[in-house]
C-alpha cells in the first residue's frame, strides 16, 4: 500500500515537473492571468462573464473568486483538456512507458499518477487565476477587504471538480483506442459545448458546473442568469454578493462529482495497453535475402524539375494512413451531396478531412533528416498546396454544381475556403507542433458556421453569405505567411 502511494505521488510529481519545465507552461500561466483579467473587467467595461439579471457583484474577494473560478470551470475545461492530453502519449513517444511497464508499477497506480499530474497542471493554472483575482480585486478598488476563504471557496467547490472531470476525461480519451485519435479531440468540443450549456441548469446531474445553486443568491432568475463572455450595452448595475452557499447538499454534490472523476480516470485500467507494442503493430520481421556489396550506384544524380513529384508525395503523406472507413465516408458524402444544395454539402464535406488537415505543419518525424535538406521554403509551399488539393478534391462536387449553376460568388467563396482551411492548419501546426489546436479550433469554427454565424462563414456555406472571399483568401495568405515566418525564424535560430 505504502509502495503504491509512493509510486503514485512520485509519478505525478515527475510528470508535473516534466510539463512545467517546458516554455509552453509559462504561456499557459500567462493565459490564466489573461483569463482572470477578462473575468474581472474594469468597472466601465462593456463585457462580462457573469450577468445576473443585469447586475454584477461588487468586486469583493468572494465575488472576484466566484467569477474567476467560474471562468476557469468554463474555459479551462475546454482548453485545459487539450493542454493536458499528452500525458500517456508522451510516455509512448519517449519510451518511458516501456521502462515503467517493465517495473512493478500497477496500471491503476500509473493512471492515478497521470490523473494527479493532469490535475496539478490545471490546478496550478487555477491557482494563478486565484492570485490574479486577488490582485484585480485590489486594483479595481471596489472593496479593499481581503477574505481568503471567500476568495478560495469558489475555486475549491466550483473549479476544482470541473478540473478533475477535465483531467479524467483527458486520460480516458488518451487511453481509449477510438478516442485516442484526433476524433477524440473533435468529440471533446461537442462534449464540452453540451456540458457548458447543460451544466448551468439547476437540474444538471450532481449540480453540473454548480451555478444552479447561485441564482438564489443573486438578483437573477434562471432565465436571466448568464455565464460566458458577453457584450453589454452599458456597464451592469452592482450588488453585494453574500458568498457561496455551502450547504451539505451542495458540498456532497461537488464531492460526488470529484469522486466520479477519479473513477473515470481509473476506469481505463480495464483496457489500457500498458505500452505493449505487440498490441499496436504487426510483426516486424521480414526475411532478409543474402546479397553481396557490389559497389556504388551507377546512375548519376541529375538535378531537374521535381515540383510535381514533390506535390504528389506531399499529398501521399497527407492521406496515406487514413483508414478505410474514412475513404468510405468521403465517398458516401460525395454521393449524398448530389441531392442537397452545394452550400450545406460543402459544410459537411469540409469537416470530414479535418484529421488529415491537422497533420499539416506538425510532422516532426523527419525533421532531423530534412533539416539538412535544401529548399525548405519549397517544401512548405508544397505542404500547403497538398492541403489545398485535399480541400479541392473533397469539395469538388459542390464546386462543379456551383459552376453548372453559374454561381460565381459561391465559387469564389469555395476557392477562398479551400485556401483558408489548410493555411489555418499549417499555421497552427507550425506554431504548436501538434494537431490538437487545429482540430479543436476548426471544429468550433465549423460548428459556429453551421449555427448561422455568418461572419465566420469562410466557405460560403450559408445562404446569407459570409465575409468577402477576398478577405478570407487574404487571411489564408496571412496564415501561410505566419507559418512561413515562424519556419524562417526557427531556421535562423537553429
Amino acid at each position: 500500500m505504502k509502495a503504491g502511494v509512493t509510486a503514485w505521488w512520485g509519478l505525478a510529481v515527475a510528470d508535473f515537473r516534466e510539463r512545467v519545465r517546458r516554455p509552453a507552461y509559462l504561456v499557459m500561466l500567462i493565459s490564466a492571468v489573461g483569463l482572470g483579467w477578462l473575468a474581472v473587467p474594469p468597472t466601465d467595461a462593456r463585457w462580462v462573464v457573469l450577468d445576473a439579471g443585469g447586475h454584477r457583484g461588487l468586486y469583493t474577494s468572494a465575488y472576484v473568486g466566484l467569477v474567476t473560478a467560474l471562468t476557469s470551470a468554463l474555459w479551462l475545461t475546454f482548453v485545459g483538456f487539450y493542454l493536458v492530453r499528452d500525458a500517456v502519449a508522451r510516455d509512448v513517444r519517449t519510451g518511458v512507458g516501456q521502462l515503467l511497464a517493465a517495473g512493478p508499477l500497477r496500471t491503476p497506480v500509473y493512471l492515478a499518477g497521470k490523473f494527479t499530474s493532469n490535475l496539478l497542471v490545471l490546478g496550478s493554472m487555477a491557482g494563478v487565476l486565484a492570485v490574479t483575482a486577488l490582485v484585480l480585486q485590489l486594483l479595481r478598488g471596489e472593496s479593499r477587504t481581503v477574505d481568503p476563504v471567500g476568495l478560495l471557496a469558489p475555486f475549491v467547490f466550483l473549479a476544482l471538480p470541473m478540473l478533475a472531470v477535465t483531467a479524467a476525461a483527458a486520460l480516458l480519451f488518451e487511453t481509449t483506442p477510438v478516442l485516442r485519435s484526433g476524433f477524440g479531440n473533435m468529440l471533446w468540443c461537442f462534449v464540452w459545448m453540451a456540458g457548458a450549456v447543460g451544466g448551468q441548469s439547476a437540474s444538471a446531474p450532481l449540480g453540473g458546473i454548480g451555478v444552479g445553486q447561485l441564482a438564489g443568491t443573486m438578483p437573477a432568475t434562471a432565465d436571466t442568469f448568464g455565464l460566458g463572455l458577453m457584450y453589454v450595452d452599458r456597464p451592469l448595475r452592482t450588488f453585494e454578493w453574500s458568498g457561496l452557499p455551502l450547504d451539505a447538499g451542495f458540498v456532497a454534490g461537488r464531492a460526488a462529482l470529484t469522486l466520479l472523476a477519479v473513477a473515470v480516470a481509473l476506469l481505463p485500467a480495464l483496457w489500457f495497453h500498458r505500452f505493449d507494442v505487440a498490441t499496436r503493430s504487426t510483426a516486424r520481421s521480414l526475411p532478409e535475402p543474402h546479397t553481396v556489396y557490389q559497389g556504388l550506384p551507377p546512375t548519376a544524380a541529375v538535378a531537374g524539375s521535381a515540383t510535381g513529384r514533390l506535390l504528389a508525395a506531399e499529398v501521399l503523406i497527407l492521406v496515406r494512413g487514413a483508414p478505410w472507413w474514412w475513404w468510405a465516408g468521403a465517398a458516401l458524402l460525395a454521393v449524398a451531396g448530389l441531392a442537397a444544395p452545394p452550400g450545406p454539402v460543402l459544410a459537411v464535406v469540409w469537416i470530414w478531412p479535418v484529421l488529415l488537415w491537422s497533420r499539416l505543419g506538425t510532422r516532426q518525424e523527419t525533421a532531423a533528416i530534412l533539416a539538412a535538406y535544401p529548399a525548405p521554403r519549397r517544401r512548405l509551399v508544397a505542404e500547403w498546396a497538398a492541403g489545398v488539393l485535399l480541400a479541392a478534391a473533397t469539395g469538388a462536387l459542390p464546386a462543379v454544381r456551383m459552376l453548372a449553376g453559374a454561381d460565381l460568388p459561391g465559387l469564389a467563396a469555395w476557392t477562398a475556403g479551400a485556401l483558408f482551411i489548410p493555411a489555418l492548419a499549417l499555421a497552427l501546426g507550425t506554431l504548436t507542433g501538434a494537431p490538437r489546436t487545429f482540430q479543436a479550433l476548426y471544429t468550433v469554427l465549423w460548428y459556429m458556421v453551421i449555427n448561422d454565424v455568418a461572419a465566420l462563414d469562410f466557405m460560403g456555406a450559408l445562404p446569407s453569405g459570409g465575409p468577402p472571399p477576398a478577405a478570407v483568401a487574404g487571411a489564408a495568405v496571412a496564415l501561410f505567411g505566419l507559418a512561413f515566418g515562424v519556419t524562417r525564424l526557427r531556421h535562423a535560430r537553429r
Partner: protein
Amino acid sequence: MLELIDITKVYKGHKRAVDGLTLRLGPGLVGLLGPNGAGKSSLLRIAATVTRPTGGQVRFAGGDAVAKPGPLRRALGYLPQDFGVYPHLTGHEFLSYLAAVRGLAGRSARARVGELLELVNLTHAAKRPLGGYSGGMLRRVGIAQALLADPRIIVVDEPTAGLDPEERVRFRNLLSDLSADRSVLLSTHIVSDVESVATRIVVVTGGRIRFDGEPVELQRGVAGHVWELTVPPAELTALQRRLPVTRLVRTAEQVRVRVLAAHRPAPDATPVPPDLEDAYLAVVHRTRVTT
C-alpha cells in the same frame, strides 16, 4: 572542401559543447572518436547546417555555409544519430519523396532509389510500409537517403547503431568506396567502426580536438605503454584506481588485464603491441587527467 574554423557551440545554461574547434575536410574518411558528451554530435550537426555555431565559421567551396547553407546542403548527405520516418509510406515511396525534396530529375531519382535500396539490401522490403521495419532496416533507409544526391560531403553520426555484423561489414565497404573521392566525416564511439577504413582519426573530448592524425600515428603514440598482466580478482579494483584498464577477461580464479602505463606496472606484466582502441583510450585518459 569543407572547413570548420574555430567553431564554438554554447547551449542554454552555458554548456559549452564545442570549444574553439577547427577541422578541415578533404577527400577521405575522417573518423571522429570521442566519449559520450564529447561534442561529436553537436559538431556534426553544425557541419550538416542543422545547428548554427555560437562562434566560428563553416566554409564550403569558399562560401559562408552558416549564412547561406544552400550550396552545402545540395552537396551534403547527412545521417543523424536519431531520425524518424513516415510510417505509412513504403521504403520506396519515402526515398522517392526525399529525392523530390532534393530536386532530383524524375528518371535519375527513380534509378537511384532502386539502386540505393539494392545497395542497402532493402529491395525485398521496398514496398512495405516503414512502420513495419526493424531498427536496423530503418538505419539502412537512413544511409540510403544520405546518398540520394551522390553527395560530395557525407556526414554520418553513429551510422552502424542497430546494424548486424554482416551489414556493418557492408557499410564499411561502402564508406571505403565513397571516401575515395569524397569527404566523409563519421562520428562514433565504436573504435572498430573506423579502424579499417579511416584515413584520419580525430579524437574529441570536452568539445576540443585532442588528436588529429593518421591511425598509425595515434597507435605509435602509445607504443610501449600497453601491458598485459594477471591479477587476483581482489586486487582488480586497486589496479583500476591506479591505471587505465582497456580490457579484462575473467577466468576461474584470475583476471587477465590490459592496462596503459608508462612503465612496467608489475613484475609479471608483459608489453603488447597497442591497437587503436588502446591508443584512443590513452588520449581520453590523458585528457581527463590533465583537465
